[in-house]
């Protein structure tokens, strides 16, 4: 016994994947007047990220280099090297365009981001190492490395909240920056009760009370230091205002060390969703694309499922931004990386042959460089290697972009931007 399919849907553009890349492409297209549907299942990898956007691998950044190195970026970001050669756009223009759009859009949703995107901004991670990115929440940036040598520093730990281990943070910062001394201080907020191992959302939920924030403010006031690091406690709706309030009431510089898998990534995700909605995108959550129907050279429609029903969506253009192995956009069978939709060509960045389980490559490296192949217009290729006229790829689902052996969230977003440009022409 089964029920009929739900009513057919149609959109100018269907975007698969509700993470940073998908939402950015969707927002850009919607802004140009296209009707856009974004389909997502579950929670994106963006929600687990640091909430910051970088353009070059962390490992390649030297501590002293403040500017984005376009040459390195162009060389390492396949297929941009091709793209830049053949198109009128310079990489710098692309970054400027995309970043301006994002920074403005995110600010509209309550997330102030740095707007000086060609420089790397120093942040501290929750285990004390320096993290560099170009687009970060304005309230997290450290500024010059000098800051870490002058003034007094402290880090506040909330007993039970696991996102920031104040002792470990302090030990590592002190080791890595011998000219400063950062002291850990722990408090047990009364609102935590006897709870341990609180999740980020649990902390945010408890900290939504004024009294809880007041307790944190009091604790910070009692610290003899000008700069205080605190764990993430505010969701998007309260972030900027909350940080501002704490700064005002304590008179100190407040930093939120970079913490993956916590509120920061969720804030970015939420802000991007709101941006897409505000531009008129339809966000279809809890739905998964299980099949695509194509004719020669074109993809025509998709089959969505909810838990118990199916639905057909037809479109003029398709953008696949469904993420890498982690978020489920690509599948793994044994050591082979696969396209779960069985439509697109999977390839390995820098190598033309398909993935083979060989010790020569190091499985891990190959897995992270594997993904869907695109041409220099971001058009996805079918399994025979021919580009589709109306299907594009964006983000970590592409070969070479799996974060972090790719170039970070920034690289994925650039591909989304370019895909959107080309998708615009078609639909």
């Amino acid at each position, binding site marked *: 016994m089964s029920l009929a399919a739900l009513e057919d849907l149609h959109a100018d553009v269907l975007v698969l994947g509700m993470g940073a890349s998908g939402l950015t492409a969707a927002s850009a297209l919607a802004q140009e007047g296209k009707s856009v549907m974004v389909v997502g299942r579950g929670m994106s990898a963006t929600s687990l990220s640091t909430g910051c956007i970088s353009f070059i691998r*962390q490992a390649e950044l030297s501590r002293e280099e403040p500017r984005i190195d376009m040459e390195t970026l162009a060389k390492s970001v396949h297929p941009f090297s091709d793209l830049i050669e053949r198109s009128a756009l310079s990489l710098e223009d692309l970054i400027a365009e995309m970043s301006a759009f994002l920074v403005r859009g995110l600010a509209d949703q309550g997330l102030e981001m740095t707007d000086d995107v060609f420089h790397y901004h120093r942040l501290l991670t929750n285990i004390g190492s320096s993290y560099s990115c170009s687009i970060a929440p304005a309230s997290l940036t450290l500024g010059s490395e000098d800051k870490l040598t002058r003034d007094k520093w402290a880090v506040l730990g909330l007993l039970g909240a696991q996102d920031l281990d104040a002792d470990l943070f302090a030990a590592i910062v002190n080791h890595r920056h011998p000219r400063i001394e950062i002291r850990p201080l722990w408090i047990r907020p009364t609102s935590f009760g006897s709870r341990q191992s609180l999740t980020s959302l649990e902390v945010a939920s408890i900290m939504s009370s004024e009294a809880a924030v007041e307790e944190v403010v009091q604790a910070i006031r009692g610290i003899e230091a000008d700069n205080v690091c605190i764990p993430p406690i505010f969701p998007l709706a309260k972030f900027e205002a909350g940080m501002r309030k704490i700064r005002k009431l304590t008179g100190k510089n407040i930093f939120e060390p970079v913490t993956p898998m916590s509120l920061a990534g969720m804030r970015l995700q939420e802000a991007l969703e709101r941006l897409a909605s505000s531009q008129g995108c339809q966000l279809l959550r809890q739905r998964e694309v299980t099949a695509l129907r194509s004719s020669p050279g074109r993809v025509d429609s998709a089959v969505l499922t909810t838990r118990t029903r199916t639905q057909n969506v037809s479109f003029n253009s398709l953008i696949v931004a469904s993420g890498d192995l982690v978020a489920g956009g690509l599948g793994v069978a044994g050591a082979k990386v696969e396209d779960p939709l069985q439509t697109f060509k999977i390839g390995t960045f820098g190598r033309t042959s398909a993935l083979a389980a060989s010790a020569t490559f190091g499985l*891990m490296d190959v897995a992270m460089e594997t993904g869907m192949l695109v041409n220099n217009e971001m058009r996805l290729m079918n399994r025979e290697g021919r580009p589709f006229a109306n299907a594009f790829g964006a983000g970590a689902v592409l070969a070479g972009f799996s974060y972090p052996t790719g170039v970070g969230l920034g690289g994925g977003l650039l591909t989304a931007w370019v895909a959107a440009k080309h998708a615009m022409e078609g639909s």
Partner: protein
Amino acid sequence: MVRTEVLVIGGGITGLGIARDLAMRGIKTILVERKDFAAGASGGNHGMLHSGARYAVRDPGAAAECAAESKMLRHIADFCVDDCGGLFVSLEGADATYEEQLIRSTRTLGIESAVLNKKECLGLEPGLSSAVLHGLRVRDAGVDPFALAMANVDSARTAGATLLNYRCVDSIARSRKEVGEIIIRDTMTREAEKVKAEIVVNAAGAWAAGVASLAKVNVPLTLDKGSMIVLDGRFSHGLVNHLRPPSDGDIVVPSHSSSIIGTTSVPAHAPDITSTSEDEVAKLIEEAARMIPDIGAARAVRAYARVRPLVPSEDGGRRTSRDFKLIDHESEGVNNLVTIIGGKLTTYRLMAERIADLVARKLGNRTLCRTAVEPLRAHVFMKAPPGVTAFHAQRMVRKYGPLAEQVMETCVHSPRGTEIACSCEQVLRGELEHFSEDPDVRRLGDLGRRTRAGLGFCQSGGCAFALASALMDKVEEEPIAMIRGFLEERGKGVQPVLAHGQLRQTVFRSYLLQGTYGLEGGK
């Protein structure tokens, strides 16, 4: 200069068993181990208490010993034994002659066995391949080797022995008829200490030849590497063996919620080889999947390998006896040095007893051996205090036995003590803090082994930070280096088996650690 009656070199299961036996006889004993206890073959084996059936045809001496000792260990070490039974299964192309010989030998040697038909085999183990023809039921069991080793450590110390890890032997002085002063060096601080023992026991396993040459005596040793793979999930109720002459990939051993498949036999040129080749991995999975098909798509957690110290024989590898050998170097003119090589985990206690008998005789000590009757660890029951779940209390009792109450104290009284530090193994932070105080614990791996933090199926993620945070004030090493070292160790084991779920896991881990935490260097 420290004086002692006996110095035992080597903290594998045999050395530990010897130290315990000697100490229980009232003999003043010091044991030194160059890494953490059970770092050699004792820490990287199949985790089996052999019924003996595997050796019944070709190695009846070893078989009989296994049968007797495994019975004994079930009594004295029940806390770490999973008495799940074993099944030998016959597949296509079976060697009928060998099968007959096996059944006969088990009867002759008094090894309990029962022949089962195909239906009975599948009834016992529903995961078996339908290609199974028939089987032989035996009393194999699983054992947790590290838990067994640590229980010997604790018991030996209670009996008065001094056991030191991270101590290597730098030099052994030799006079014409005896070994003299031995220089022991702390491998981490590089501090040296001199020890003078009446008798020296070389129980260094795969390193026994090296120790022997320091003492200028000769110990012929065959080094043979065996690899194993840990799979996530318990694929069988009990052990499953391939009924055929011993070869690669014969055995599946369930271990808690995992299954260990193994093993291989590769001649080794050095004692400290711990890497597994691609070919070995492929072979092991292929062979195991012949018996239990689901294994083909299982999530392999990690691979590990150690070198077996075998008594040399004419044929190599599989054919080499698993029997053990005592060498009294009196035959070479050295009065106070004895060596033990060969054997199996299952027979460690017997090996220890034999050496201890020999040593005691030399010392004129007539106390009888009690290791066959004294339980290794007392049974305990502990109620969960408020703030700790019954589940966690039970985990602690299983892991720590009589120590559990003290560990629980730490959890309850430390401000962060009841934080869940490792979710795979459900380890509380207080457990980490407790063992961080243990002088044996010098590195994150030591802490992980004692608490099981970081050893679960995710092979350590966030718990690496919890481990570092707990240990960092107690050791010299800087936290990031500690974390990186620990993760690299885990990574070495994962690399050979990257596929299925573990590949996704590792990609995810890399996503977090490399890009976000900036733990640069090495994937």
